[in-house]
């Protein structure tokens, strides 16, 4: 009796398994990379996909990016599209967890059948989804990934992936130059997140030949504990550095600023915030009271400042975004998203009407560096490298959290992720095409 029931149970389980997994099924299709025309593209449409943290611990600030991208794509669509095609963006939430990122990337590639991925966020998530879905074998382009890990610029390892952000080593080297030029002989302190993100910066500082008198590492995640920020301030009080460099995430910046208020230690050191944690607008969104504390601190960026009303790209983006998302504030994240979208559209246009995945990748490699784009640094795309932006400009925060370039104009420094020197760039950004459209 019981044996029959057991068998029934197993069969039932198998049937249940198949049935459940077939809830949203698509007819079976053998994997065939040479299927004719690429998926995600028709004569009049092109489908792009993005997976990023829309919720979860990494979402503050970043969650605005897909919406910003969509705003720009809609603007282009309303004005004829690109080479006659309208762009759709499928956006998924991976909560900054690599396993989820892989699952969502699978959905985008296999179910939604997007033409290319754009703007995936996070080093671990991007690494995982690129490897697991075999992006290179499938030939799916992964454009302008939102992470500063230098490995993605390696064409051999990641043939279909293109970086956009300058790497953390580049950033550290540029800060290093700043320290040597303007703060030689001063006492230096460094607070950094004790994982590869922070240690990449350490490597960069080492290359730049900078030694810190005090280094304060913190365990990733511990910035949420009540005592952590206070601990940093105590140590800083004891060390009394002239300059303190901060390489952590935004939540750590918030903890630092909050603790400095508590400990009454404000204005005692020159803070320099790395681009990841220095996103004043993210802080402003959650804690407006802390923003004035940023005043006088230095920060880095490679795009024009969101408050720079004289910049033609900023003017355009502001107008577009205000119409598309009137309730949201226009900040760094919006600029980042719209810039990515802009560059993607330019690349697609340059690849021509006869658009293929291979063609797009080749176009970016050969012409990417000369495409119009909003960034203030040159792009390094070539047939041997997939490096995106290669430098930063340094600015100072005002009382409202706006970063204005030191010296009144953008002085951009460029370098590489290796041992190359940091040089002041003479790069002139190409003029924006009329109305910011791919004409």
């Amino acid at each position, binding site marked *: 009796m019981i044996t029959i029931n057991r068998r029934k149970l197993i069969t039932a389980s198998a049937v249940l398994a198949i049935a459940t997994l077939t809830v949203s099924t698509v007819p079976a299709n053998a994997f065939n990379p040479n299927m004719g025309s690429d998926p995600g593209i028709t004569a009049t449409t092109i489908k792009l996909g993005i997976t990023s943290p829309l919720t979860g611990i990494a979402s503050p600030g970043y969650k605005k990016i897909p919406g910003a991208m969509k705003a720009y794509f809609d603007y282009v669509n309303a004005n004829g599209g690109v080479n006659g095609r309208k762009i759709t963006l499928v956006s998924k939430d991976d909560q900054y967890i*690599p396993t989820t990122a892989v699952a969502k990337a699978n959905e985008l590639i296999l179910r939604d059948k997007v033409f290319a991925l754009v703007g995936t966020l996070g080093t*671990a998530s991007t690494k995982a989804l690129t490897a697991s879905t075999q992006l290179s074998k499938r030939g799916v382009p992964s454009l302008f990934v939102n992470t500063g890990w230098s490995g993605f610029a390696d064409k051999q390892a990641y043939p279909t992936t293109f970086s956009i952000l300058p790497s953390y080593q580049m950033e550290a080297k540029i800060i290093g130059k700043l320290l040597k030029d303007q703060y030689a002989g001063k006492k230096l302190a460094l607070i950094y997140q004790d994982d590869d993100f922070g240690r990449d910066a350490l490597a960069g500082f080492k290359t730049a030949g900078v030694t810190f008198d005090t280094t304060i590492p913190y365990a990733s995640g511990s910035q949420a504990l009540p005592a952590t920020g206070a601990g940093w301030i105590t140590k800083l009080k004891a060390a009394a550095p002239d300059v303190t460099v901060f390489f952590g995430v935004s939540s750590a910046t918030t903890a630092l600023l909050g603790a400095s208020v508590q400990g009454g230690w404000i204005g005692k050191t020159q803070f320099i915030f790395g681009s990841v944690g220095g996103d004043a607008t993210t802080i402003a969104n959650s804690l407006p009271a802390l923003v004035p504390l940023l005043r006088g601190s230095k920060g880095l960026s490679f795009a024009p400042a969101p408050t720079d009303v004289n910049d033609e790209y900023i003017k355009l983006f502001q107008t577009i975004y205000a119409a598309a998302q009137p309730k949201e504030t226009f900040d760094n994240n919006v600029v980042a998203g719209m810039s990515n979208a802009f560059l993607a559209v330019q690349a697609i246009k340059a690849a021509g009407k006869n658009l293929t995945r291979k063609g797009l990748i080749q176009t970016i490699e050969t012409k990417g560096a000369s495409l119009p784009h909003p960034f203030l640094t040159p792009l390094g795309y070539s047939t041997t490298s997939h490096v995106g932006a290669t430098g930063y400009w340094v600015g100072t925060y005002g009382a409202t959290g706006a970063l204005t370039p030191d010296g009144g104009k953008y002085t951009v420094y460029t370098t590489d992720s290796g041992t190359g020197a940091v040089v002041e760039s003479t790069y002139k950004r190409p003029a924006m095409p009329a109305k910011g459209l791919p004409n």
Partner: protein
Amino acid sequence: MLKKHPLVTFIFFGVVLYLISNRLDELLVYQGASVAIFVIAIASLILLTGYSGQISLGHGALMCIGAYAAALLRIHYNAPVWLTFVVAVLAAAVGGALLGLAAARLSGPYLAGTTLALAIGLPSIANKFSIFGGEQGISFDIGLPPASLGEDFTQYKWYFWISWSAALIAMYWLRHVLNSRYGRSWRAVRSNDVAAELAGIHVGRNKVLAFTISAGLAGLAGALLGMTISLVSPGVYPLLLSFSLATGAVLAGVTTLGGVMIGAVILVAIPEIALAIANRYGGSETIITNLPGLLVSGLLILTVLLVPNGPVEQMHARRAKHAKNGKASHSPVELTLRVGSKTFSTKK
């Protein structure tokens, strides 16, 4: 059939899976591999909690140990894939043994809390020592499927095969262990450890053994999970994973291995179902993100309330009750009494 010919049943199931894998599209094949991984992980919890009565909220951490062991071996020594999995099992088993030794005297919430603290604390070790690759993790690439399987044999199908082979072998072996004297001694200790001790079972050793084997299985599942996403990093094994496993174990019916498929399938299927619901009724990203959590947690609470021993046990219990009711006319005890030349009997 399972009881009489377990090997045949498992092989039969394996053949069914092989046939299925050829008919499904890639996304489902990938999810099928995930189901296999959850089957192993949940089974490890059934062993530990259902049979040995020790709760663990930190099995994600044990999976993590196995995964890192496998990935490191692969990256630094280019070890063959099967060896990496063996090492994953051993490394996690060692971790489990240590944890078991420390935890043998704990029970209930103390054990839960300790394993919880482990689940939170372990990833920070990965961040601390650069050999573990930090937040971005280490790649875990098992290579392409062998050429003998043909040009069209996709990577995900390969993962499916490997995961399910591992799952079937592990389940077969585990079933054997649970039906052996070890299984019985675990159940004895779980029911009443004082009586078990008196009966000659060494309680401490018994509990550590359970932890060790459970951890070994979890390590295997962890390595397989790393394989499917080609990455091993702290973010892959968050606290959420440990909670999901506990959930899956309860949904499966913590005391029986039979329901393990149900638990695994539900865990993998819920996000899909949530997505389908959200798409049907037009949902924002908020709903898509929150709905799976709500469904799983709600299901968990309902299960614990209504079918606490799991649907499988419930079915058995009901069957036993029906059987009993059907034979109500029989007396439970059959007596035959001979008095002199007369025979009195309750047999009918």
